[in-house]
């Protein structure tokens, strides 16, 4: 009796959850489907779901007309570069805050967090001006630096919460056994820190890849990443749904895949360790 009730409940739960999950996912599914249609099929009424002539034509057209690869490459360089640069700067900082805490460590962490709260639009013109002065406008270097800076607080925080979980006793034991600082970092800390660093890397690539304020305002043609490329579809000519879908699918696919790997880290990273 009890068992049949739970099975029924489980069935109801499953049906409800799948229905809602598919509903929420539907816009993405629809975009992916549309990217394989012809432009005429894309706006067909009634809408075509699975039974249409699947074609890869749009992907070829998008690449040919707009030089899609260049935008993709810009995104890869800017997102990857800003994350790696951020890690290089943040790892020593987070390491020292986690293992050699002082009275001011907490204040420094909180202050770093507060810089993340600064609304971008409030400093738009100064940054714009500095970029013009330094010749950084519409360059990948400039954008890489800005994205590194806006994500640096998150990187430091995430690393800090991970490093905090490494038990200090292990370090002390190593020191007792006569390990030097270099050996301590190389053989004990690094292996234990790698999972945390990897998660931080993953989440920050996602954040940098999707950043759409600075990438839209500080780039034109040369350094524009995918966010800006997609935005250029907001004033299109002629039929473009299938091409928009193909471009969108290519822009989100790599991040969707990375994102599914980083669900757990997402919570920790975006709540600054307040929810784990």
């Amino acid at each position, binding site marked *: 009796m009890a068992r049949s009730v739970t099975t029924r409940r489980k069935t109801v739960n499953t049906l409800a959850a799948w229905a809602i999950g598919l509903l929420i*996912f539907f816009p993405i599914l629809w975009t992916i489907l549309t990217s394989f249609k012809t432009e005429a099929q894309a706006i067909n009424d009634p809408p075509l779901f699975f039974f249409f002539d699947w074609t890869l034509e749009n992907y070829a057209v998008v690449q040919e007309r707009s030089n899609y690869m260049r935008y993709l490459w810009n995104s890869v360089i800017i997102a990857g570069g800003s994350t790696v640069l951020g890690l290089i700067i943040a790892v*020593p900082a987070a390491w020292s805050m986690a*293992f050699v805490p002082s009275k001011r460590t907490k204040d420094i962490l909180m202050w770093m967090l507060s810089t993340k709260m600064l*609304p*971008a639009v409030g400093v738009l013109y*100064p940054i714009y001006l500095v970029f013009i002065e330094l010749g950084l406008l519409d360059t990948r270097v400039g954008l890489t630096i800005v994205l590194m800076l806006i994500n640096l607080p998150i990187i430091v925080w995430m690393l800090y919460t991970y490093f905090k979980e490494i038990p200090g006793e292990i370090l002390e034991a190593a020191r007792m056994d006569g390990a030097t600082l270099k050996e301590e970092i190389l053989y004990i800390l690094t292996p234990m820190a790698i999972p945390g660093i990897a998660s931080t890397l993953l989440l920050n690539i996602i954040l940098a890849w999707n950043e759409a304020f600075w990438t839209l305002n500080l780039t034109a043609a040369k350094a524009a990443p995918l966010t800006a490329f997609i*935005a250029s579809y907001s004033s299109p000519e002629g039929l473009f749904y299938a091409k928009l879908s193909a471009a969108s699918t290519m822009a989100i696919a790599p991040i969707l895949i990375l994102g*599914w790997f980083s669900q757990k880290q997402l*919570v920790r990273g975006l709540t600054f360790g307040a929810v784990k």
Partner: protein
Amino acid sequence: MATQHSRSAARFMMAPAVILLLGWMLIPLTMTLMFSFKKYLPLRGGDLGWVGFDNYVRFVSSSAFWPSVQTTLIIVGGVLLITIIFGVLLSILLDQPMWGQGIVRILVIAPFFVMPTVSALVWKNMFMDPVNGLFAHLWKAFGAQPIEWLSDLSLFSIILIVSWQWLPFATLILLTAIQSLDSEQLEAAEMDGAPPLSRFAFIILPHLSRAITIVVLIQTIFLLAIFAEIFVTTSGAFGTRTLTYLIYQRVLESQNVGLGSAGGVYAIILANIVAIFLMRIVGKNLDT
């Protein structure tokens, strides 16, 4: 047990991050503050000298100001309401035993990873377009007149798009919080005959209150700054000009830097008010 030596090493290791963030914060902030007290029109005469609090007064008294505050509040409030209510319900549902939980989770979280320009354009064209959009097809199928979503229901449409992007975030965090709830407590309540609704109101909801507060604060900070969603859908037309967008227009479109910077200072103050509450919670967590 840190020695003097390791302390100075620690300080040295922290220095690059601290100096960079200090520069990133102080330099532009000082410039924004300075511009806000100047009449500064880069394309029409450049720096025209100090004007005191003129820009601050003019920004607030311009006819666009109060509507933009109202728009901002409606969008932020609307998105918060939708994402929290549905986030709580969805996280409770996802916490139940079911088949294919992992896959459903992935489906629900996916929108968060879609870049803002993509989600805004996909919704604008493929769903909300009054001629070829999916909603228009749906409305016509029922013999109704298709809705001009982004002009007639512009605010609702933006709220819908942004909620779709942020619902996964709220759900994911609330789900994480629910999973930390002691299931024995719920079972005990069930055995004592507490109906589902009271179990929800007296056990689940209080347990979630901290997570909900965090979601509200973090989302508020991000939502106050939404830009791309408005940029590619309405460009601020049809009553969708938020405070952020108004400042952007003053600064980059009409190149009135003084006025825009005064607006920027208002935005910074507003964000800081929210930030203080968030930091208090995060800071408390840091002690434990």
